[in-house]
């Protein structure tokens, strides 16, 4: 056992540290396309104090440290690009407090989406959180760290907008509270009315600190939920349709997808519209309102509501939707990756045409999928491709397609979501120089030894 391994074992216990090859192999990669790179050590802490001690050790020894949730981002954000320590947060999975009336929950930094969902359903059936469509093992901290989106994003914005407090271990090993919890016992705000320091951490992928606790806003869970699918062959009309739908303020979530397979989805764009209600009357009123605002498109024959059979509904209403994962294996061989720029809804048609063009050019299975963010302020448009992991040529074609997506996204005014290291570089290059300098100052001051997830957001 090396000295470092021994020191880590003293902090977290021997069972929770490893420098073995089999662990290194596993922690060297994520399910996406980025090249693997092995860590030297894997450590699984249980408490914020253990996280502090590990970070202090890393800082002292100048060893890179990469925090990891479930590793589901697909863009290589948890791959230890410069080796060092991967800190797997999964043991820190406790739900610490629910404030029912103020509608927030405080969880540890490794708590999974599925754990919180199950906990709320059992103990607080009138509350819910904005669950993303990633597998249930994905962690809440990692999701807000990448500015993820979820079922309530159309109403309340990015999931990171729903954070109401953070506890973070800095590169120095100091523990720092962000938001109202820095002054009060209560975790109701991540900033306002004070300076909002959460921006020093959210979106940085662990390059400025490691989240050990966070508070997340919760929202009313209605007793009933239903789904309608409006379909159109006019991609150019999608922004108008979204505008009308969001104007109703009746919709829980709006997802849009287009894909060539199965045949039921060929040729059209599908707006999946979710509604909720506590009574049949409420649900029906919302349904009627949604139908009415789209009626002009029905009359002009530009779109219509497809029949959603009772057999289809459970799949569509599932949270998270496992059908998203099933898409990952459309091309047998289990490879799936997407680039999901955040972009204006009015760019929908350009995006939809681009994903088709690239799929044809590189002969790949594809899906275009959009999630509306905050009443149509923008959307995440996912350019998703499937590939066979046993087919190196197909993997290379997928990489090329995704690279073209990256260039396209920047050209049409988009911003990368959970960008790969290459995309981060492209974004930094295009960024306003003063913004870039500010980011550089922040990074340099918060992580002077460059140990925090190095390779990511390396502005300088």
């Amino acid at each position, binding site marked *: 056992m090396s000295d470092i391994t021994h020191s880590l074992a003293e902090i977290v216990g021997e069972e929770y540290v490893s420098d073995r090859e089999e662990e290194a192999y596993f922690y060297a990669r994520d399910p996406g396309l980025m090249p693997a790179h092995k860590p030297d050590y894997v450590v699984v802490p249980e408490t914020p104090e253990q996280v502090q001690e590990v970070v202090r050790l890393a800082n002292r020894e100048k060893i890179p440290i990469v925090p990891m949730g479930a590793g589901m981002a697909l863009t290589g954000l948890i791959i230890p690009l410069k080796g060092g320590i991967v800190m797997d947060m999964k043991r820190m999975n406790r739900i610490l407090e629910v404030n029912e009336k103020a509608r927030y929950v405080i969880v540890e930094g490794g708590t999974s989406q599925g754990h919180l969902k199950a906990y709320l359903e059992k103990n607080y059936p009138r509350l819910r959180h904005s669950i993303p469509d990633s597998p249930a093992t994905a962690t809440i901290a990692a999701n807000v760290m990448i500015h993820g989106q979820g079922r309530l994003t159309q109403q309340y914005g990015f999931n990171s907008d729903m954070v109401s407090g953070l506890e973070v271990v800095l590169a120095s090993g100091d523990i720092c509270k962000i938001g109202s919890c820095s002054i009060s016992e209560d975790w109701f705000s991540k900033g306002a009315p004070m300076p909002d320091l959460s921006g020093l951490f959210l979106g940085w992928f662990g390059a400025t600190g490691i989240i050990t606790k966070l508070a997340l806003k919760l929202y009313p869970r209605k007793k009933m939920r239903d789904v309608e699918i409006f*379909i159109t062959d006019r991609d150019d009309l999608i922004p108008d349709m979204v505008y009308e739908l969001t104007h109703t303020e009746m919709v829980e979530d709006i997802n849009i997808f287009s894909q060539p397979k199965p045949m039921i989805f060929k040729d059209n764009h599908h707006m999946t519209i979710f509604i909720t209600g506590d009574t049949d009357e409420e649900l029906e009123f919302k349904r009627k309102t949604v139908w009415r605002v789209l009626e002009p498109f029905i*009359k002009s024959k530009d779109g219509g509501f497809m*029949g959603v059979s009772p057999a289809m509904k459970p799949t569509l209403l599932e949270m998270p939707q496992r059908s998203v994962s099933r898409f990952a294996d459309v091309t047998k061989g289990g490879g799936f990756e997407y680039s999901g720029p955040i972009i204006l809804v009015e760019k929908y048609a350009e995006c939809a045409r681009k994903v088709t063009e690239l799929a044809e050019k590189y002969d790949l299975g594809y899906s275009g999928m959009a999630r509306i963010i905050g009443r149509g302020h923008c959307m995440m448009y996912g350019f998703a491709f499937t590939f066979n992991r046993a087919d190196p040529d197909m993997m290379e074609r997928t990489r090329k397609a995704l690279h073209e997506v990256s260039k396209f996204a920047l050209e049409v005014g988009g911003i990368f979501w959970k960008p790969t290291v290459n995309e981060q570089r492209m974004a930094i290059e295009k960024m306003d120089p003063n913004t870039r300098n500010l980011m550089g100052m922040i990074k340099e001051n918060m992580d002077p030894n460059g140990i925090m997830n190095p390779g990511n957001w390396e502005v300088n």
Partner: protein
Amino acid sequence: MITLIWADNEKGPGLLEGVKMYALKFDENLCKTCPTGDCLVKCQYMNVDKDTAVDEMLKISRGEDSFVFNDCVTCYACEEYCRRGNHPFYLITEKREEKGLLTSPRAITKQWINIGEPQGKYRLGDVKEKVLSFGYMPEFLKWVRGKLFEDVMPSFIFGQEFFCNVVYIHFANTSIIKERLPMVMENFRKLGVKEVICMHDECYGSFAHLAPAYGIDVPFKPIHYFEYLYNRLKELSNEIRPLNIKAAYQRPCSARLCSDKHHYVADIMELIGVELVEREYQGENALCCGGIFNMCFGYDLASDVQKRNIDDMAGHGAEYCFFNCPACQGTLGTKVAKRGIKPVHIIDLCKMAIGEK
């Protein structure tokens, strides 16, 4: 009973070459002398008197514009209302198609055409000379079980390769039917089946009437599953325990394409001890489930029709609503259940009577 009258093409019936456009013959003289104008007078979605009905149908026949193109909701009922065999619905459909008038949004039409496209994903049971045709309705893979079907199962076929495609008359697209139906027949021919029990009205209507009228040779004897169920129940009569329930029947639009088989509904209910409630929207006066209305025309029409229909069931004391078409059941099942009426397919009702449910 409807007797289909069709115009032969130049080469005579049965000599289809590729995608032939066999036109239905609409006899203007027959229409001019119609004493009732029932096709449109009885229509539940238009308010038309006899003279207007005749005038509009003649205008349509002559290729002129008519408000009927806009107001017809594709419920097929006029095919049954017309007792003179003049096929008003097919005329409206063919003329809509000629004029490029869409009944539904383009995306919906495309979707349905895509769904029905053969993809080589059909499923065959142990196919014998007598076979059950599930068309492209997966529900039957679960429902068609037990004693009722044990003398035929597991001889079944399922998939787009055996799909009758008649649904496209809802979308004013008979071309796709004429294009695909010969291929469907060829697929049946390859299986060497002699008798096909059709689990859906459209399949039966297509194989028994439409295909021959289009000049497409049907290489087997089509049997409506109502007829099969009735005969099978009689064979199992010793095992029937009358259900002693009151039920409403949701008659589907497609039943208008084989109204000669409608009597089996009452016959079967009598055998299994079900009282068919005497309600307003039954038989010829049946209302659509609203599924097509939703897709083609929006919320209000579908909502109004569904409400009147379910109110009528509830108002006449129906404990059960039984379905013939799985699509109707999918559309209306939850809604009737919310009114305290149990939704059930007719097959399941029959299974209940022989103690299988």
